[in-house]
Structures are given as structure tokens and as C-alpha cells.
């Protein structure tokens, strides 16, 4: 089970604490340090203990459908429950509402943005990252130059949200100013996460993360060949 992160409740602060926080903006910094990923091993490898907030992270999955969303779901679900919105910009497929609800996301906090061109999707990503109403902005840009990643990085710093860029696996060879770059590969039980770059942390770590529903089921494996023939008979 995912443990609840420590939350700063402004109402619970004493006046002394409050004045200190107001003084140097620590209040904001405290809130945007990191968003726990819900995977203990991953959190342990990331500075701040979670996804960097107010920064752009790049996820580079080897293929679609290997758990590239499942990796984020615990964090997204938590963000949607603290009154923050989740933007999905130019996703490659339809985010399936019943599955998001099952993962614990509050659907009314989910917004899908359709873009007609790479330029539009970049523009929308930047706008969403700058908007403090968003807890996370997930974007699937079609080709992105590193100067644009820097732009998005600045926007994420301004808006204080979790910026996630999905990029093809080949992008791992390119330089990128993103704060965190993870390469994702499938395994039978879940996902291999390779930390390719990590600002303020150690790169090169390789983690095996189990994902729910990715545990192989027993009885079907035996079938190996589909039951179509039987069904037709």
C-alpha cells in the first residue's frame, strides 16, 4: 500500500512558523520539493524522495503499453486528491476513464488537451505548466528540441507542477536539460527503470519495479495458443 506523504497544512502552522515561511518563500519550496512516486525503491533513488516538482522529467519507454503510465498513477492519484488538476497533452491514445478511476484518479481533475501540431502541443504544455492549478502535466511532444525542453523546464519552475515529457527511447542519446530522465523497459513482472540523468542525485541506477496487474496470471499461460479454434468449433 502506498504510504501517505507528509503534507503541510497551512492552517496547522503557528504564527512563528508562518512568519518564517512568508519570509523566505519556504512555504512554496517546501510544497514543491518532490511528489512521492508510491514506489519505495524509486523514491529512495530520487533526491527529495519522489518525482521532482516544479521541474520537467522525461520518461523514455521502449514501447507503449509497458507500464509507462502505471509508474505515475500513484503520484497522479494523490495529486488529484489534493485539489490539483492533471493535464494530458496530445496523448497517443485515449486515456481510458474507467482505468484512471480504478487507479484512484479523480476524473473531474483530469483534463485532456488535443493538439493538431507539434507546435500547438508545445504551446499547450508550456501554458499548462505555468498554471499553478495543475499538479502534473503529462505531454507527448512530437519531436522536441532541447531549447524547448529548457523552456518547459522554466515554465514548470514558474507553475510548480510535475512536468512529465514522454519521449521515444532513442531520445536517450540526446542531451536534455530535464531534471530527471528515466528509461523504461518491460519485464515479466513489471518495469525496469534506468535513471539516465538525475539532477541532485545519482544516475546509472537500474531498478526493477513490480506493477499491479503485470503479475503473470497462471491458468492462461498454459493455453499458449489462443482458444479461437475451440470457440469456432
Amino acid at each position, binding site marked *: 500500500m502506498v504510504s501517505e506523504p507528509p503534507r503541510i497544512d497551512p492552517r496547522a502552522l503557528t504564527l512563528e512558523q508562518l512568519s518564517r515561511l512568508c519570509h523566505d518563500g519556504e512555504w512554496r519550496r517546501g510544497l514543491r520539493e518532490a511528489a512521492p512516486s508510491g514506489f519505495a525503491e524509486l523514491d529512495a533513488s530520487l533526491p527529495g524522495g519522489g518525482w521532482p516538482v516544479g521541474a520537467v522529467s522525461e520518461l523514455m519507454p521502449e514501447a507503449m*503499453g509497458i507500464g509507462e503510465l502505471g509508474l505515475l498513477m500513484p503520484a497522479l492519484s494523490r495529486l488529484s486528491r489534493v485539489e490539483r488538476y492533471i493535464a494530458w497533452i496530445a496523448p497517443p491514445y485515449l486515456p481510458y476513464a474507467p482505468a484512471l478511476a480504478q487507479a484512484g484518479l479523480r476524473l473531474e481533475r483530469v483534463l485532456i488537451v488535443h493538439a493538431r501540431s507539434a507546435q500547438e502541443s508545445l504551446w499547450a504544455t508550456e501554458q499548462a505548466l505555468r498554471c499553478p492549478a495543475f499538479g502534473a502535466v503529462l505531454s507527448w511532444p512530437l519531436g522536441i528540441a532541447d531549447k524547448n525542453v529548457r523552456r518547459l523546464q522554466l515554465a514548470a519552475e514558474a507553475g510548480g507542477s510535475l512536468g512529465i515529457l514522454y519521449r521515444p527511447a532513442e531520445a536517450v542519446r540526446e542531451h536534455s536539460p530535464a531534471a530527471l530522465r528515466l528509461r523504461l523497459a518491460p519485464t515479466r513482472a513489471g518495469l525496469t527503470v534506468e535513471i539516465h540523468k538525475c539532477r541532485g542525485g545519482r544516475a546509472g541506477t537500474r531498478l526493477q519495479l513490480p506493477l499491479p496487474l503485470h503479475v503473470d496470471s497462471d491458468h492462461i499461460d498454459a493455453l*499458449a495458443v*489462443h482458444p479461437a479454434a475451440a470457440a469456432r468449433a
Partner: protein
Amino acid sequence: MLWLCIRLPQLAREALADERTALERLAGWAYQWSSLVSYASSEPLLWLELGASCALFDGHAALLARIESELAQLELSHVCALAPSPTAAALLTRDAAQRAGGQPPALTKAQLRAQLEPLSLGLLDLPPATLAALAASGLRRIGEVLALPADAIARRFEPGTLLYLRRLCAEISDPRPAWRLPATYRARCEFGVEVRTSTALLFPLQRLLLEFQGYLRARDCAVQRFALELEHYRHPVSRVRIGLSAPGRDAAQFLTLVRERLHSLALPAPVSALRVSAHEFAAPGIVQTDLFGNDAQPLQQLQRLIDRLHARLGEESIQALALEADYRPERGWRFTAPGRATSSRGGGGGGGEGSSDVANPSDPPRPCWLLRQPMRIEAPRELLRGPERIESGWWDGGDVSRDYYLARTGEGARVWVFHDRCDGAWYLQGLWA
């Protein structure tokens, strides 16, 4: 109080409805001189209270001269009269001597009384029976009527008579319904030269939108949609509709939205004039800032973002999700309008309207990605989980009979496939991302 009454005999010849709209338009024109403008419902009369604005316009004489010269520019024949009461001012415009001009204005009650006394009884706006009764008593001049004891008038004539006479002499208050700013907004800005680029439009736009904001503030209201029209020489007008997800009246916000729209708008021809109009108004939202005074509420920020995305990418560009009660996977959800969420912290009971968006724990797991259309595929090699049979929709013609499986592709991706029991083929419908 000093009232100016303008009689516009020209308007009397027009149909009643036209007369009303013409008077209303003139009331808007007169609003520049006085904040208290009124017009009559039965006669072509317009009243302006000038007592409060005389000082601003260098005294009543200068002000009256300005008003009369503008009336002349509008090519309207008119009779003007000044009096301490609107009733008296209206009566004086009926006087032939006033029409001819040359009467000194009646600024005080004493001057008014002196001017009224020699006038004929027939000018009084009283019922014919009352006028006949007064004439039958041997009275001819207004002065003679005013000299009658008040209790005698009250006893002998209709109850309204005494009230009318007192109002005529400005002895008691004489309220008039104040004309209000019109219910719709229209503003126009004409350029001396033709503007060819949309960026060059931004400067005059800013001014127009500031005026618009001023109007909205004066009315204490906000708009959710307004129209911007670009007039072209020898070309139909280009219309741009600006919509906001929540009522607003901030000129800077309007300008941002308009800029986004102009960004994607190709001007068919140079622009000669701009128009801003709004017909529907709403109560303004309450603007709140956080403890540190620098952030508007997240919902408001979100609405502004949604507005910007709408303006630049189109109305359908941003959508929210909702669940639908349907067993067919492709119908188990729908897009909805964004921004419907409100604060729902602590709604732990699961009741209320939001409860339909909560997954049923007994439902079998579903994949995060759904294909827009199921895609026909070869029979999958490796099935990991299933089958889950879904048979539904026979009642609406969209019936399905499918066996769903979790399968693994050669790349290691987990996919959601089904075996269609009707056509025997395999389809890919989702990805377990």
C-alpha cells in the same frame, strides 16, 4: 436642482415605438451631460438634471449653449427650458414665448413663479374637466390658480391637482425615473488609416477593451462572451466570438484571449474599424487571493487557461472525462466540458453527483490506454489473463459479444485484446500502460 427639459416635436411625428427608441438613444447621448436623465413615456420630452453638472461645464449658460449646438448638429428641432422642477420645465417648453427664445431662464423658485404667473391656464397639464372647471371659475392665468388657497383647491378639484401645482412650483419633490445605461454594450473605433496586420490592432483594441471594462465596472457586472467585429473596406465584416469559461471583466484577460484569437485569424482585408459588443451579462465572480496575496484561486487560474486554450486551439481542444454506465468498453466513458469540478474536499461519503466517477471495486481491471477504434490483429501468441466475456448492447443495435484477454506482445507490451464471437476475429482495443 435645476432641470432642463428638451421638447423634440420632430419625434412626435414618428411611430410610438420609433419615438421610444429615438428618445432612448438621445438619453444615452444626454448622459454625457448629466447623470440623471429621464424621458417621458407619452410625449417627446427629455429631462436632464443640470444642477449637479453646471460647475463641471462652466455654468448653466455655457452648458445649455453646448447642448443646443449639439442638438443642431443632430438636426433636431427642439425647445429647451430650464426650471427648478421638471414639471415646470416641461410646461415652459409648451409656451410660445419660450419657443421663440429670449426668455431668461428660471433658476430659482421666485423666478419660476414670476415666469409662470402670466401664462395661460391652458398650458397646465391637468385633465380637461379640471381645466374647464378652473376656467368656469373665471380664472385665466396660471398665477390666479396658484393664488388660490391650497385647501380650496384640494376640496374643489381632483386630488392630483394640488400635487401637480406644488410640483410645478418646485415646492415638493418631483421624482423622475432615471434612465440607466443600456442593457447591451456596443462600442466602435474607426481608424483613420487601414490596418493591415493583426498586431497593429492590439493598441486600439486595448483602449476599446479598457472602455468595455469601465462599462462593466460601472454596471457592476461581467461577461462570459462578447463579440469583436472587424470592419473591412468593401468586404464583409469579420466576426470573432470570445468566450470565457467564467464571467470576467478584466481588460487584460480579454486582451490575452483576443490576441490568441487574432493569432490564428487570417485577415481577409485591411481593417477600417473595430467593434466590441456584448449582449449577455452576468454577476461578476468573486476574486480572491491567497494568504500571500499573489495567487488567484486555482479554479480561476484554470478557467483562464481553459479560455486561452479555447481561443488558440479551438472549442473542442480541451476536454474532461466522465464514466458512463455501459458494459461495452468503448461506451464506458465520455468526454465532458472541462472546469465543471468544484472543491469537493472531504466528500468522503461517496454520495452526491460525483459518485458516478468513482470506480466500482468489483469491476475487472481496465487498461489505461484505449484505442479510438478496435484494431483488427492476428491472433495473439501469449494470453496472460482472461477470458472476460462481455455481451451487451443487443437492445440498441450496437450489440457486442466478445471475450477479452490480457495479452503480451513481442515487444513486451501488455495489450487488451478481444476475440469477437460474431466474426471470429481478434481485435486490439487497449494498452496496459
